[in-house]
């Protein structure tokens, strides 16, 4: 781990003088010491190292995720998450939320299969992806056909669908956002917002 850290351009950056004096104040020295004490190098050596950013607040700290297996080729299991020392904003540090990210990714209440709750039922039951998606598409098609406002009173085409609404997620990627935008606005859904409204 020590060798790994030394190799990174982080230390080069520190050597440039700008940030050198801040390292201690950011608690980095201590983090390195702790890593040295606690992490067994032979274990990490077998893991795949991936760059990501923290999904919580919008500081967007850099993180390094260590997985057993390479997800691009095979099943991969997240083993460890740490701050990315190369990242200009957080320089390897993480807050109490970011430091516990692994347990968010692997939390017991992660959902693993589509479920349906029937009207009046007190339980959810599994449903296949195909059935769930077909059911949703059917409900959308029928409701849109019935309720789309095609023209206003003045005869202007308005193509406004207000009996369906969509809340998008401000933790999804810009690429998901674009796919979502196209599908939702494309169908004419007017009630379309994300957490920025909160």
């Amino acid at each position, binding site marked *: 781990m020590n060798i790994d850290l030394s190799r990174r351009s982080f230390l080069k950056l520190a050597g440039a003088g700008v940030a050198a004096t801040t390292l201690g104040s950011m608690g980095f020295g201590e983090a390195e010491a702790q890593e040295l004490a606690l992490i067994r190098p032979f274990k990490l050596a077998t893991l795949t190292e991936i760059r990501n950013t923290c999904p919580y607040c*919008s*500081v967007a700290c850099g993180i390094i995720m260590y997985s057993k297996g390479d997800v691009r080729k095979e099943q991969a299991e997240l083993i460890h998450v740490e701050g990315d020392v190369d990242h200009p904003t957080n320089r390897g540090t993480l807050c109490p939320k970011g430091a516990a990210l692994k347990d968010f990714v692997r939390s017991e209440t992660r959902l693993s299969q589509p479920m349906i709750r029937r009207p009046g039922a007190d339980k959810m039951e599994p449903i296949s992806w195909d059935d769930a998606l077909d059911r949703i598409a059917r409900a959308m098609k029928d409701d849109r056909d019935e309720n*789309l406002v095609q023209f206003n009173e003045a005869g202007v085409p308005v193509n406004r669908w207000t009996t369906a609404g969509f809340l998008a997620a401000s933790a999804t990627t810009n690429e998901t956002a674009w796919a979502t935008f196209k599908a939702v606005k494309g169908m004419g859904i007017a009630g379309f917002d994300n957490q920025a409204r909160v």
Partner: protein
Amino acid sequence: MTNSWTDIKNADLVIVMGGNAAEAHPCGFKWVTEAKAHRGAKLIVVDPRYNRTAAVSDYYAPIRPGTDIAWLMGMIRWMIENDKVHWEYVRNFTNAAFIVKDGFGWSDGLFSGYDPEKRDYDRSTWDYVIGADGYAEVDMTLENPRCVWQLLKQHVDVYTPEFVENITGTPADKFLHIAEMIGETAAPDKTMTSMYALGWTQHSKGSQNIRGMAMLQLILGNIGMAGGGMNALRGHSNIQGLTDMGLMSNLLTGYLSMPTEAEVDYATYMSTRNFKPLRPGQTSYWQNYSKFMVSFMKAMYGDAAQAENDWGYHWLPKLDVPNYDVLRMFELMNDGHVNLYFCQGFNPLMAFPNRGKLTSALSKLKLLVTIDPLETETARFWENHGEYNDVDTASIQTEVIQLPSTCFAEDDGSLTNSGRWLQWHWKACTPPGEAKLDTWIMAQIFTRVRELYRKEGGSVPEPILNLSWDYADEGDPTPDELAREVNGRALSTVYDTADTSKVVVEAGKQVLNFTQLRDDGSTMCGCWIYSGCWNEDGNNMARRDNEDPSGLGVYPNWTWSWPVNRRTLYNRASCDMEGKPWDPTRMVIEWNGEKWVGNDVPDISPTARPQDVGPFIMNPEGTSRLFSRGMMRDGPFPTHMEPFESPMQNVFNAEMRGNPVARVFEADVADLGTSDEFPYVGTSYRLTEHFHYWTKHNRVNSVLQPQFFVEISVELAEEKGISNGGWVRVWNKRGSVKAKAVVTKRIKPLICDGKPVHVVGVPLHWGFTGVAKKGYGPNSLTVFIGDANIETPESKAFLVNIEASEEPVA
């Protein structure tokens, strides 16, 4: 943010007001620590609670929730009275010199043109006098009594330190101490940065809170400077991105706006968007609107968008109301007018106000679809959890389909941070069970609906059948394909407009950035402000060069920043009229006699002479606006308004409740309480150890902060016989919650209008799913009214009562 997180180290003074960065943005806040440690910067915190940001501040002052405008107008008044004004900046870079129409005025807390029936203003007089030459009239001496500067002086005159103290509870001596500190940054080479978040937005006049500080920053000359700016810290990892991408009921991508039904065709839509400069020689960059709009419509409808059919303009939904925002949707839902509702990574049952009303509304849906990596209260709104969710399950006829999605660790793509950096990330692990990518889920829903329209026909199938869905696997678009579409490409060869023999970009190639977009159908671009993120150089969002040649925290080659990789917005304003930096030691850009050069991408045409072209290139004035004309519904200047639920009357106008133009649904009026019945001021906030309603699913965070609590002062606890760690009930007309009481010196009673005001702090991280102990959110208590301009609910100021109580029955 106008600036970036790493730029904060350049600040001389940091003011955190309307946010709590040390707890809500801990690793970004370290740049404040850095500025303090190595630049000698000072930190001011103004907040109802002595929070952890306050704990490391140089100076702290308390304030009553919802009174920030009075405080900020008082601060502006003090700067003017004490000549703490950056005059050259104000004269040239703001609209201080512009002459305003005669009819405009203010009295009794209201601007001219108020119609109490419509709860709206006639804003026609809130504008400039336009001269015979077609340009706005100005008086560069700032002496004309109708110029913006004189009107502003008049407007803020009432906000004396004593007047401010009476409303806000900030003692006048503390207010004056802070004024002295802030006033120092009127020097051209001193900067203050403003860091704010939902403490300013979640009010019925949130937009005006922010304007108040923006005006102060302009008067001090702190916008465009390294270490300056208006820095919205923002709440979620990609809330900036989803706003930029226009996933809002009133927006299209890149802050293009949704058509309204009054805009009967594309020509009419464009007729109010010509953005003719209001002063000679100004840039008024929005004059390029049609290039961005046509390129957007080409991205939406591909070959089906042609000049002959107005580029598919009629396929876009057109609004009949300003907004189908979430509050309106839940109002419609509660009235039985909404049948289907989708929640993608969104837990509205805990996030929006008046939970009782939300439950009632969700119970009237035919189908609720949730797309989330986690269990949410929204997906389980029908499930009885005793006092924590006391619903009659059998009577709720809503069908719920819960779709499991991946989380950040399992997908590739970019997120835009609050500093406008688009940072690409890579997946690290396999999703659990059958969880799927959000892109796959959206594509599956869309293509299945499209298939039904192909087979069966139906109501206006064209926008669905013609929607461009040009991906190698239509059912599973890749992030790379989507990002390239967002950047945009040439559909046919694009030629230089000045020299048509010159090729700008070949057909089929990615455009370099939005300067290559055209309005003749030859280019497409999903979101113009993101154009440049993935051009022929490749994925610029994945760049990882962390060198910082200037030492100013610019990191020009780290990922990519919108627009055009510019790191500090309005950076032209960091230089004087000759183009010389106000502070040469923190040079962002400068004029070298021929062009703008320096450490950042200039926020102005590179060859625009500094004497000729103003720095605020998006505005037709070329200046910023101290007076916002008719662009905001509730006034061209911020004026003090009380929250809808307040312990005191509006001192200007006892009849006025809340924001006089905020939308109030009839059904919610009866739910508003008064201070006779509910004497205490509730406010909501986050804790360091938790993130919204996510981390209660995480065992580590749930151990760190296991249980819902409310925070009250020692004085209130004594008055109500409440012990530290004892159970309390907090309630108002909308709901009731039970919590452990944290009795603390961090909150102290304030004296407003001669009477003590007690604040009850309600953190927002608990619910009835996850591994933490069950609890409530503040939204059981909050008011179902939003900001008059953008409908963000007033969750930071509401009235409650409190009493000692017993543990709830789960």
